[in-house]
């Protein structure tokens, strides 16, 4: 049994796993603090010819490489989308259309906008959300509409947004049950979809609705255990960065998620203020690169401009309007 030093954690036990190479994976027998911490981290050693799913590229035209579909999937990645002083929803729309095109089963918890909003933007990006929903590829939880149902009518069975009716800050267990039910693999024999994906638009809204930061972190923890580790899917969540408005709960949530996530995409407004040609700046941070030869915790910064149907990225200071 080969033993390699893990990048980061606690001397994890290695055992040979799948045929793809060495897998550091903890079996279900692990318990206690070690298991609790380390099961969340899965590293896969890849051969050099396989590209990472968001291959780092030094070229100045990153838009082709940034979001190219990956050649192989190892599963279990948590992507954190963060926006500070700007609107990072274009990233959510991108990931939604990306995963739907990649034939994944998507569970979308959309708490901040209605279904028609995402569907119209999705059509501009080339996917049809209604078709995906009819096919069963997309499970859509519309927060706004469900909230109205929950608050005004007593529900018989537990509703995912049951916590709206409770006076004290409860937990998000019904929501987690909903996610698990939506993404569980159907035992019909053939696999129609490649892997499951959980997309949450705006976790910060849960804080506004009365949940504590710890409850939301617990929910994400449970979802990661199920979606990332058990079902080998991906997760993408969006959190707002409140910046100088001292929102302690939001900071706890953001810091906690930043430590757990594999990829952080941070959309910031320009520090110099409003610009018509450059809408903001995107910082990309890989936290656990799978190739040990690559310098870990890579970070790239690009500025972007959002257009009607796409987003164009360019290096800092190299906006086409300026050059």
């Amino acid at each position, binding site marked *: 049994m080969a033993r390699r030093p893990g990048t980061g954690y606690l001397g994890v036990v290695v055992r040979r796993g799948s045929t793809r190479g060495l897998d550091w994976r903890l079996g279900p027998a692990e318990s206690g603090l070690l298991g609790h911490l380390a099961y969340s981290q899965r590293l896969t050693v890849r051969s050099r010819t396989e590209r990472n799913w968001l291959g780092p590229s030094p070229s100045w035209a990153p838009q082709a490489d940034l979001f190219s579909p990956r050649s192989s999937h190892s599963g279990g990645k948590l992507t954190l989308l963060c926006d500070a002083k700007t609107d990072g929803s274009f990233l959510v729309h991108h990931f939604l259309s990306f995963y739907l095109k990649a034939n994944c089963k998507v569970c979308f918890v959309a708490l901040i906008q209605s279904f028609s909003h995402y569907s*119209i933007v999705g059509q501009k990006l080339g996917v049809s959300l*209604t078709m995906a929903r009819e096919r069963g590829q997309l499970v859509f939880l519309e927060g706004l509409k469900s909230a109205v149902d929950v608050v005004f009518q007593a529900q018989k069975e537990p509703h995912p947004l049951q916590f709206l009716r409770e006076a004290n800050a409860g937990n998000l267990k019904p929501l987690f049950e909903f996610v698990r039910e939506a993404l569980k693999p159907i035992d019909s024999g053939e696999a129609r979809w490649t892997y499951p994906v959980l997309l949450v638009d705006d976790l910060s809204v849960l804080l506004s609705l009365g949940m504590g930061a710890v409850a939301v972190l617990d929910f994400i923890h449970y979802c990661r255990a199920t979606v990332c580790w058990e079902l080998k899917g991906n997760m993408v969540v969006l959190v707002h960065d*409140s910046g100088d*408005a001292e929102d302690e709960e*939001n900071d706890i949530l953001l810091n906690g998620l930043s430590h757990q996530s594999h990829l952080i995409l941070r959309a910031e407004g320009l520090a110099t203020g*409003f*610009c*018509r040609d*450059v809408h903001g700046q995107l910082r990309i941070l890989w936290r656990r690169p799978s190739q040990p030869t690559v310098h870990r915790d890579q970070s790239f910064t690009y500025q972007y401009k959002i257009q009607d149907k796409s987003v164009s990225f360019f290096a800092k*200071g190299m906006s086409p309007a300026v050059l």
Partner: protein
Amino acid sequence: MAAAATCGSVAASTGSAVATASKNNVTSFQRRGRRASGTNDSGPRLVSITGTRPSVRNGQLLVSTGLPALDQLLGGGLAVGTVLLIEEDKYNIYSPLLFKYFLAEGIVNGHTLLVASAKEDPANILQELPAPLLDDKCKKEFDEDVYNHKTPESNIKMKIAWRYQLLPKMEIGPVSSSRFGHYYDASKRMPQELIEASNWHGFFLPEKISSTLKVEPCSLTPGYTKLLQFIQNIIYEEGFDGSNPQKKQRNILRIGIQNLGSPLWGDDICCAENGGNSHSLTKFLYVLRGLLRTSLSACIITMPTHLIQNKAIIARVTTLSDIVVGLESFIGSERETNPLYKDYHGLIHIRQIPRLNNLICDESDVKDLAFKLKRKLFTIEAGVQWHDLGSRQPRLLGSSNYPASASLVAGITGAHHHTQLIFVFLVETGFHHVGQAGLELLTSGNSASASQSAGITGMSYRARPRALYFKENKSKVGARQLLETREEHLSSRLLILTQAERLCMGRRFFTAFHIFNELPCKGDCICLQTCQTQ
């Protein structure tokens, strides 16, 4: 209206093709008539509601806010199904005006109103609505440019003031009484017959709180719970969400909630920092938005955010609302006597505009807006220097083509005559280490040694400010790296502008900083050290 028809056809071609989940839907080409996603309407929904028009950008149905200037700033109007949050000014003088304009617009267009207040009886609010201006009178009213009697008459015209006359005003001249957006006379009352002919519902909290409405268990304060019940009741019974089989409504419900979040509603976020039910307001906004998204309604809320103790709540409220407009009046502040703000009564900040059905939104380029309440009209004008003169750094707009920034700087020099701009550097295309040396020059102030090391070819002196010209190089490395560092240098009062921004500034900008008029035009970016204003 021909304009609306062309808007509609454009919207049909761009914003159409949404297949909703209704099973009656055969064709996927439907014009987006409204935001209701769960309706059972089949077939094409033609927009024929008075007082609305489809947005050019995304086919969204828009209503007017009652102020055509504000409509223009918000990208055409207020979208149906969204919330307009007005952050009240300190003494609550101008925000009720905007509230009343919104309601008056509803009456003129024949929309149904729902007025909720904890302070005033809605019937009294409706009595005080401004009268609409009709065509033949409006031109006459416009010529009367009389200021509010509170501001003192001033015979001295500041040198600065002429600048503002050249800047375009945001308002559109009321040539005709258009069907979208009307003008109102703030000094007259709405005629009684118009009010009586309108369909309105009032929610006055002291009356409702004692009555026994069926209240669902929720963690909101009782006032909010009752208001939500009331709104949901009206929406369902009058058929604004299409779920009532008896009623087929083709009208808009305009909801106005006054002073939400104030202690009169039973909420304590204005009194204590960490109150008992600090989530009540945000939950209310969330559920309200859910109600609006599934019905033909638009809502205006005025909120005294300056009273809210916990800044985090203001940030959350902003995220949960669609459009946020902040009013800042000059009354009681030092700006009231400031000659620069002499003509205006306050500033308007458009804090947030939603991105509905789109990746981008129609943000206006002009960020410095001021309003003024003339005797009859409420106008919004652009180009006023709005930043706090007491701050150290002048804010520069990114690549704005607006001469506002020129006036911005000129304002500084006008008010404080002891500006001390020291250096201007022109970084020619990519002379990297020269740029660095130049920055060191700014901080060190010793010119001789730096110029030798930097290879400066020419120098000109004129009292304090100096211009340094650098040799040209082929690579563009230096300029780009300087641009990357612009945020860091901003804190040390060093402004780095790109070529495009520099061209936008205009000659007056540099004259104001006592810089030579004959500046070479080459260069990728320019660094300026700003003065320390008192």
